[in-house]
């Protein structure tokens, strides 16, 4: 029974999140096409595809002018076939469908590492690098801040605790900004870590997967550190305060009165009840990390979505920019969904509501 109820909960969340994604994509298309940008991308993509069809040797015997004419005809036909000669309201729905199915057209300037011109390929190729770096950063931050926060809440009022309180305001400085300083110190001055990028060309040439992995790790040190430093003081401080507030709840005192040993008080009475809000905090952290990725990747030249975005901005590659927005909508949606499910597993309220 409970399983069925939970499936219902998940289905409901999937539907809601999907709806938001649809809206986000429609807004994207609407904004982008205010100057007809989407129309242009679609048309040029179709034109290229039609042109490809006319490349074959069987077309070579036509004279160029006639071929051009046939091509134009074919292009018009294709437009009509896809319903793209209709008013914007209808076209926009077609575009929306394309976006939802990740049919994102062709890039104007950028290509993927494998040489593809399709926006989908360009973006999907970069997605894993971004997800890898920033999920690691968020998870590391989460664990470090939890552990230190817990420690501080146990020793609250101590010198160390006061130090963290004092330093907490410094966390307004974002990770990418600390990144600049870290590059300055460890790359420019000390020359012990790379300025940026994913992996050294030299290492790639060795074709040794172990060396490759180690080198990627080496390139991750600075970006990860920048995010950890940025979140450190405030993260630990707020976790500490959070635990302290949770440990003044009446039921904690009641448990103490009952004689529940300190260990169990911490796990069952402080940590467990505070888990749902902690999960929410983690979700927000992950969501922020996706946005923060764009600028951090620019600083560290990390070849992920952010670097593609930066390149697309500078080359004015609209198709890629729209594609990035689409992927981001999906990425955020997926993140929220996963964490919703996690939340549902932990919070008895949801378990009960859908479980019985």
């Amino acid at each position, binding site marked *: 029974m409970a399983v069925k109820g939970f499936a219902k909960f998940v289905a409901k969340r999937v539907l809601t999140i999907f709806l938001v994604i649809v809206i986000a994509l429609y807004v994207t298309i609407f904004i982008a096409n205010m100057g007809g940008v989407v129309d242009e991308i679609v048309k040029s993509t179709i034109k290229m595809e039609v042109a490809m069809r006319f490349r074959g040797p069987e077309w070579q015997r036509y004279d160029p002018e006639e071929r051009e004419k046939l091509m134009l005809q074919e292009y018009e036909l294709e437009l009509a076939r896809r319903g793209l000669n209709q008013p914007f309201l209808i076209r926009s729905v077609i575009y929306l469908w394309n976006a939802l199915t990740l049919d994102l057209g062709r890039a104007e300037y950028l290509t993927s590492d494998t040489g593809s011109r399709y926006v989908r390929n360009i973006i999907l190729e970069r997605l894993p690098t971004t997800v890898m770096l920033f999920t690691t950063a968020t998870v590391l931050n989460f664990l470090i801040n939890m552990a230190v926060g817990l420690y501080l809440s146990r020793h609250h009022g101590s010198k160390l605790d006061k130090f963290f309180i004092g330093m907490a305001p410094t966390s307004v400085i974002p990770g990418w900004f600390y990144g600049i300083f870290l590059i300055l110190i460890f790359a420019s001055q000390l020359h012990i870590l790379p300025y940026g990028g994913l992996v050294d060309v030299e290492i790639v040439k060795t074709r040794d997967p172990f060396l490759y992995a180690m080198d990627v790790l080496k390139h991750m040190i600075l970006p990860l550190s920048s995010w950890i430093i940025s979140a450190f003081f405030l993260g630990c401080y707020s976790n500490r305060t959070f635990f302290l507030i949770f440990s003044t709840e009446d*039921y904690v005192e009641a448990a103490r009165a*009952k*004689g529940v040993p300190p260990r169990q008080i911490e796990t*069952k009475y402080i940590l467990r009840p505070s888990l749902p809000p902690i999960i929410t905090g983690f979700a927000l952290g992950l969501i922020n990390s996706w946005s923060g990725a764009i600028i951090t990747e620019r600083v560290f030249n990390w070849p992920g979505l952010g670097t593609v975005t930066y390149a697309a901005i500078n080359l004015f590659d609209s198709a890629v920019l729209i594609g990035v927005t689409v992927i981001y909508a999906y990425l955020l949606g997926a993140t929220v969904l996963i964490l919703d499910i996690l939340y549902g597993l932990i919070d008895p*309220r949801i378990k009960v509501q859908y479980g019985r």
Partner: protein
Amino acid sequence: MTDTILQSRNLKLYYATRKGVVKAVNNVSFDLQKGESLALVGESGCGKSSLAKAIIRLLPRNIATYTGEVLLEGQDIMKLSDTQFRRQIRWKRISMVFQGAMNSLNPVLKIGYQVAEPLLIHEELDKKEAKKRAVEALRIVGIHESFVERYPFELSGGMKQRTVIAMALVTNPDILILDEPTSALDVITQANIMNLLKKLKKEMQLSYIFITHDIGLSSELADKVAVMYAGEIQEVADADTFYAKPAHPYSQKLMASVPTLRTEKKPEFIPGAPPSLVNPPSGCKFHPRCPSAFDRCSKENPPVFDLGSGHLVKCWWYAK
């Protein structure tokens, strides 16, 4: 007279705060007989909860002073180590229902487990046995077995209160401290809980320390009444004596502030602000608000005068 089960002698509990030392419990002495219920009444902030916590030794971190004697059947439990106290006294002998019982339940643990938990800890029962006893305790307070698997948010306020009482009773203690057990409940639920407490007391031979700021409510359950003001106990008397003829000027004021059905008299409010526990008034703590105050009151703290048959009053008026 029956046996005395609990005695408090010169009990003190002071808190250290930014503004100074808060004298929340100041030289408190009283006796509790077996099977008796003592109502502890007084305005909000006078130190009632602090006294309860001092007895069951559940102290916040910012303790400045914690001294005196608490005798449980003659044994001074203040002398026990923290571990001994936790093992031998808390819940085994003295249980407590906290103020704001609504929040005394962990939102993510099932009711049954929470009620059974003291058994798992103190009596080292196995889970099955503990659960059986928990079901029994819940049944006694009127909660059906099926609720064992529920979470607190599925319960009404009255049911939560009953659960917390069950949680306190499950280990069969001798003394139950009830800190405002009905204050957040509506009138009907309040009455239900009061009836339950009366029933339990009779059936289980319990002694109560019943804390309330509602002097009307205390009359339903109390055998004896202790009035607290500014961290001190001002008057102790048999319930009948007290309600008929309160001796201390503060008690009189308190009684007058209760709306009654019998008389047309409007309830009076006690004029003036509650005293500061950091810088309490000199002499008798009540003198700035006392209508009967005279010279001596502001200069010397009155001792306790025995008016006979255990009626104790801390007021200069009775020195004459």
